[in-house]
């Protein structure tokens, strides 16, 4: 992929490259998938907003040629809520990490999902705090090592998909950086979906998570993603033993008819106007 690739049209590559991400990091792959999804849907760059919080994944907005907002740790979704309410025609993409989106930002995530506000939430899930140097996160599995879990993590991890479904998001999916084609298709569907769409993208941090957990190269981590995932469509055919320790990928919930918050608010405004004219 040289500079002639149409993806470059959507990048601030002359100004801002190279990226801050370490060699072998999965975030760049997710950025590519988001751009290709935006391209294939034919969205105007002026109509796309990317909002992020703090962390490795949250540096993504610097590199893409949209309206980009890099906010505070964990609060991206709340900022995005204000933007979407004021300009409903904008396509608002929120990029968070696992610590950003689920620990400090967990409250904003569940409440935005509950409102079913039309945001696309791409949660890049590498099970570690990368920017601060390798501390355990809400998705670090039990037994995994981190610099703040030097004897192995004893905290159970969140299942992002179950959390999103329970909170009320109307589109919930999981994919991995290894499944790059599937990731592209899922992100495209998530963008098209009207309502809160959550995509849990399992990603790799070879430099911190990998090194601490006996997977020294990005290739080993991608292989791990391949071997530890099962497609949601075949889970019924698998025994509980076969599914143990596996991450299920695919689309878990896709309900386009659920009432969407901004639309409902507009209906409220319209009904008040009608009421005023009737009186």
């Amino acid at each position, binding site marked *: 992929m040289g500079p002639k690739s149409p993806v470059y049209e959507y990048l601030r590559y002359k100004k801002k490259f190279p990226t801050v991400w370490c060699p072998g990091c999965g975030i760049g792959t997710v950025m590519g998938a988001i751009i290709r999804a935006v391209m294939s849907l034919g969205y105007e*760059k002026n109509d796309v907003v990317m*909002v992020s919080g703090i962390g490795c994944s949250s540096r993504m907005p610097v590199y893409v040629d949209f309206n980009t907002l890099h906010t*505070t740790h964990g609060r991206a979704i709340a900022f995005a809520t204000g*933007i979407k309410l004021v300009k409903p025609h904008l396509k608002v993409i929120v990029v968070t990490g696992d610590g950003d989106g689920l620990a400090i930002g967990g409250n904003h995530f569940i409440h935005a999902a509950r409102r079913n506000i039309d945001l696309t939430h791409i949660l890049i899930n590498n099970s570690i705090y990368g920017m601060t140097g390798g501390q355990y996160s809400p998705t670090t599995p039990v037994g995994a090592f981190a610099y703040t879990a030097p004897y192995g993590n004893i905290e159970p991890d969140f299942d992002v998909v179950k959390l999103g479904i329970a909170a009320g998001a109307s589109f919930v999916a999981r994919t991995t950086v290894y499944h790059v084609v599937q990731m592209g298709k899922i992100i495209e569907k998530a963008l098209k979906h009207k309502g809160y769409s959550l995509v849990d993208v399992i990603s790799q941090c070879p430099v911190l998570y990998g090194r601490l957990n006996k997977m020294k190269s990005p290739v080993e981590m991608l292989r791990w993603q391949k071997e530890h995932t099962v497609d949601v469509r075949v889970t019924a055919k698998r025994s509980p033993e076969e599914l143990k320790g596996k991450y299920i990928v695919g689309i878990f919930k896709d309900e386009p008819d659920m009432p969407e918050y901004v639309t409902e608010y507009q209906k409220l405004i319209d009904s008040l106007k009608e009421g005023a004219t009737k009186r």
Partner: protein
Amino acid sequence: MQDKGKPTLIQGNIACGYGALAAGCSFFAGYPITPSTEIAEFMARELPKRGGKFIQMEDEMGSLAAVIGASIAGAKAMTATSGPGFSLMQEHLGFAYMTETPVVVVNVMRGGPSTGLPTMTSQSDTLQAGFGPHGDYCAVVFAPSSVQEVFEYTVKAFNAAEFLQTPVVLLMDETLAHMRERFVHPPADSIEVINRKEPEMPFAWFKRFEMTPDCISNFSAFGDGYRYHITGLTHDQMGFPTAVSREVTDGLEKLRDKILNHKERFTYYEKFMTDDANWLIVAFGTAARSAKQAVIEARRHRMKVGLLQLCTIWPFPDELIAELSRNIEGIVVAEMNMGQLIREVKRACPRKLPILGANRYDGVLITPDEIIHSLKVVHGNKER
């Protein structure tokens, strides 16, 4: 809707809502907290009728975040809270300073620290309003003292926020928020409304944080065709993160200088009987109401006292204190806290004068008698 020009009896919090609407506010996000909640309730009722949006967020951090997002999308936006919520908002207040986003944050003060005195009156967030968030910046804080002034200063807060592209804090107190008083809604065409400066140049020339002679840049709302980056990181004129020494210094100085360059324009105050005064009371908010009565009573006893009511608290009007203290023999600073603004008065007063506080911090409005007592102490005329 309020009948314009006709006097009514309304609460300070409601006057704040009317002021916001008059200034063009079309977005409010908030979280319930006494004694500010009536503002949120008013906005929830009135905004959708006008095509505006109200949202009750999950907490105060989310509230100010949504308000900043709304402003970035082009709306005039406001939130209202009280002490504990204001503390939670500090990070985003800092974000708004750093990203030069116009927003209005109303803090209806109650006693603190922590949950403190819910909900009795106080002025104990005076220093926090000026220096709450971490880092260097220059805060703009207004403080009205009557229901009519609440309306007026809510409009002024929006105007200053829009003109200076910065958050403006409106400091009220519980007494003012819940006090019902005569209010006259001025006719719409008599209200000055300022909007943020927008770009007219082609996209390729646009720099969101451009260095200009008066330090005010062009603001383009998201979706209006000028794509750019906003970050809470120290940034260059384009908005991209930078750690280059010169750019860091310039960026921080811009945040300060854009306020100081326009300080005179946004310094509001009222003088009461100061022309021939030998003694001066400095006060703001509802404490200034008691102070005014104290002046009237002291004058009856032939004590030449005047009142300086500060309506702009930050940036602190040093020049005003210097000018007014010229023929003064002593100053009393009346405030409902343990002595916050008195530090600034002492710092700004160029002469060595006796400066004494009249303070109350038990949740009850300070009385004229208490202020007169401090005046007498300063006067060296203790009766006891």
